[in-house]
């Protein structure tokens, strides 16, 4: 299978006046064609930053090193123009926070039509027509009326679906979805799963950034776990939820309500002054002297894990 996105040794550092935040500290992974990869991690693990870095949506005081290969070319080397060819066309972004991610003074229909107008070079009228069809496909009814409405007239779920519609409108190769279930009621989560199942059918690749494990279980083919700016495990989804490899992954699963709601001991790590060696070792029940040295990635049955236990 072809690899659509390959991230190699990515570092993303925020340089502030008196400190540097290492949000992403040496991350490598790939997403294959037609595959759904879930990037799991707690808030503050760096996963949203990672997602935004791929499309270079971060502010200027950020230092990025490494490679992000998409269709062979390194996105970090692209000019602004080249980048604009990719954004919204080849790689689509479905943002967090539907409430604030739509322009409040523009009609939804026009916002959803924009990617098609620019990238597919179709005129306003045809684009809006396609938007109506899209809205219908995503259960935003009645489509003709909704096209002319403003974001505040949509419910939260509708806004979410509009954003997904916007992302899929140009039939991109890769969709990056940032925390799609954040702030959504438990009862409504099922519809989000259905929503993403619907778009998965069209052979596009999905990078799901989420902290919602059950959601990931239903949609992903593989799981990548992030902790303190690093990837600590990349695993097939079925195996992950049966017997994960990394101690952090185990602890994460145990903290789920369905599995006992056991909290992870210790405190989340600082990204300014991370622990030396293995970043998880202060909270790990398998810690040993070896952990003071930073572990490399070990391969087990085609899965990857960053832990000395698997040496």
């Amino acid at each position, binding site marked *: 299978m072809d690899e659509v996105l390959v991230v190699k040794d990515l570092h993303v550092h925020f340089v502030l006046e008196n400190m540097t935040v290492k949000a992403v500290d040496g991350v490598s992974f790939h997403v294959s064609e037609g595959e759904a990869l879930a990037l799991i991690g707690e808030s503050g693990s760096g996963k949203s930053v990672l997602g935004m870095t791929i499309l270079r949506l971060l502010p200027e005081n950020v230092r990025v090193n490494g490679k992000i290969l998409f269709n062979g070319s390194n996105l970090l080397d692209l000019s602004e123009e080249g980048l604009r060819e990719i954004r919204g066309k080849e790689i689509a972004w479905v943002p967090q926070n539907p409430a604030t*991610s739509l*322009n*409040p*003074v523009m009609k939804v229909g026009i916002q959803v039509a924009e990617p098609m107008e620019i990238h597919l070079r179709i005129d306003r009228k045809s684009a809006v027509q396609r938007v109506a069809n899209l809205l219908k496909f995503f259960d935003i009814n009645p489509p003709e009326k909704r096209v002319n409405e403003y974001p505040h007239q949509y419910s939260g779920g*509708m806004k979410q679906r509009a954003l997904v519609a916007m992302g899929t409108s140009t039939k991109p190769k890769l969709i990056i979805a940032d925390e799609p279930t954040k702030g959504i009621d438990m009862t409504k989560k099922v519809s989000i799963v259905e929503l993403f199942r619907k778009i998965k059918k069209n052979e596009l690749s999905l990078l799901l950034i989420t902290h919602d494990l059950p959601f990931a279980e239903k949609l992903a083919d593989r799981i990548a776990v992030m902790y303190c700016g690093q990837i600590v495990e990349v695993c097939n989804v079925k195996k992950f939820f049966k017997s994960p490899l990394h101690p952090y992954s185990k602890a994460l699963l145990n903290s789920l309500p369905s599995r006992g709601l056991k909290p992870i001991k210790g405190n989340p790590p600082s990204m300014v002054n991370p622990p030396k060696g293995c970043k998880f070792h202060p909270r790990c029940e398998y810690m040993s002297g070896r952990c003071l040295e930073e572990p490399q990635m070990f391969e087990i049955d085609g899965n990857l894990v960053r832990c000395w236990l698997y040496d």
Partner: protein
Amino acid sequence: MMGYLLKRLLMAALVVMATSALTFCMLSASPGDTAEVIIKKILVGEEEYSPTKQEIQTVKDVFGLNGPAIVLYFRWLWNAIHGDFGCSYVSGLPVLKEIVARLPATALLALTSTTLSVLITIPLGVLSAARQNSLLDYACLAYSAFFISIPSFWFALILILIFSLYLDILPVAGFGSLAHLVLPSITLATGMSAVTTRLTRSSLLEVLGQDYITTARAKGLNENTILYKHALRNALIPVVTIVGIQMGHLLSGTVIVETVFGWPGIGKLLADSIEVRDIPMIQGCVVFIAAMFSIVNLLVDVSYRLLDPRVKYGEGNA
């Protein structure tokens, strides 16, 4: 919308009335009997003159000053509602007529200045926010700090010194040609634009930091489209409100600018009336200015509601 409009109109009317009451109060409560002041300042023109009781009573009769202040006020109010604002102590002409005669001059100055101000503000504010921290940005901040601090009457004098007296390309004062309009409107426009430029800049900066701008960027739109199509519309909404508030400063500004440039408008009329204690004229001018201000505020409020779809269409259905 209609209901809101009516409510606001009523409030505006009440405020104007309250202002007139307040003004009348102050003018009546001032030291020195009004009749005496009229004799001393207007009729005779000598501060030291001691009018006789006979003279005071005559003046009181002629000018209708007999009775307690409250009665006088309500008499004035009743007449005012019917369009009669009394007659000037100085010229004897009806107040309303004098004000209306001066209206075109002030309107011309106000409109020109506002237009000029907007033409300066919007480009400066937008460029300043778009190229944040650049040389241009600091130039804009310096411009606004400078013109917020500069007294308009001094700036006017400097302009006259340079352009009228030294370079001799523009007239010193007066009214009648386009050339006469240049210096007064520049004086007013620079003062107004100083505040609004700042506001446009900060409003735009705030908008540019919003999530929906990141979404727009993620769609592959170029920076200009993002700035003008997505950001500006949001940023201008609070600016419209401020332009309205600026009108208030404009009204104050015209008093000074018209005085310096001898521009025959309402501002100068007010200043002159205050100097000679021409009470009906002062009252009339103040009411007129209050009404203007209220109307402008109302218009700004209404346009704000029209511009922001969140307000226009109210809370939506799901």
